[in-house]
């Protein structure tokens, strides 16, 4: 079986640490270059793509597009400034889509 790679996209300060773990890092500062990296990554054999929420919020459409595919998996992660709650919002979105009502997050308001 072929092996796949993992990519991390984000600002330099947030992703530098990931490099030691043997994943490919793309340091990117603005949304435009993030988009071109995203396009490139999708074509190559990357299975998982971690992207900082800061960048993910600008790339909503292409990420939605990738959601429907088998691979790669796009996972928003917080960056060094803390979480923006986008990843959580996506989970919530899935629940609403599937069940029609939000039953997981309701308690917290």
């Amino acid at each position, binding site marked *: 079986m072929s092996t796949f790679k993992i990519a991390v996209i984000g600002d330099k300060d947030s992703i530098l640490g990931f490099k030691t773990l043997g994943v490919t890092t793309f340091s990117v500062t603005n949304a435009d270059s993030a988009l071109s990296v995203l396009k490139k990554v999708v074509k190559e054999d990357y299975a998982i793509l971690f992207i900082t929420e800061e960048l993910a919020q600008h790339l909503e459409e292409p990420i939605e597009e990738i959601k429907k595919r088998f691979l790669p998996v796009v996972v928003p*992660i917080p960056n060094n400034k803390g979480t923006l709650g986008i990843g959580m919002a996506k989970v919530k979105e899935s629940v609403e889509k599937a069940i029609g009502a939000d039953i997981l997050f309701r308690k917290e308001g």
Partner: protein
Amino acid sequence: MEIRVNPTRMELNRLKKRLQMALRGHKLLKDKRDELIRQFLLRVRKNKELREQIEKELTEAFAKFLLARAVMSAETLEEALMYPTARLALKVEKQNIMSVYAPRFTWEQEKTTRGEDSSIYPYGFVGTSAELDTSIDTLSGIMPKLLELAELEKSVQLLADEIEKTRRRVNALEYVLIPKMHETVRYITMKLDESERGALTRLMKVKDIVRAKV
């Protein structure tokens, strides 16, 4: 509105068969939807917990990393991290959840440097700060969880998609197709009964005329 068909006995038979098929399909799809939702809920609960945990831990790791950056100069830091010792090899398998195919990841860390007892630190300890060590240690501890999260999140997304599709089908059958067919069956039976009654009265009338002539 009923389906436009010729009110004949043959059409009625055909329609009844179709209706039966639709009812069976509806039941099956409903079962599928229920099971999909069960699977979905199992996963999404775990997904939520895992994400909460990871977001917390990652923020911590980043904070440590920031500290390391503050203590060390940017050049030394980059130099230290330039050549990673490990390469993550990811294997992807398909897992089948109610015929929704989601990826399942297995992974191993390949060492790029041979010999030497393998450490996750790609640098010597001289010239780097201890904060860097701890932050990298935390990060590598988070990695397996991140992979699990990726797996879960993808399956949740795919399941949500499939549930939506299935629910739409169930509703289309339940609220559109099946009532339509019921109505059409009623329409045809009524038409047929009517023409039967028509034939009967005609027959009686003819009989009366014939009897009057005799």
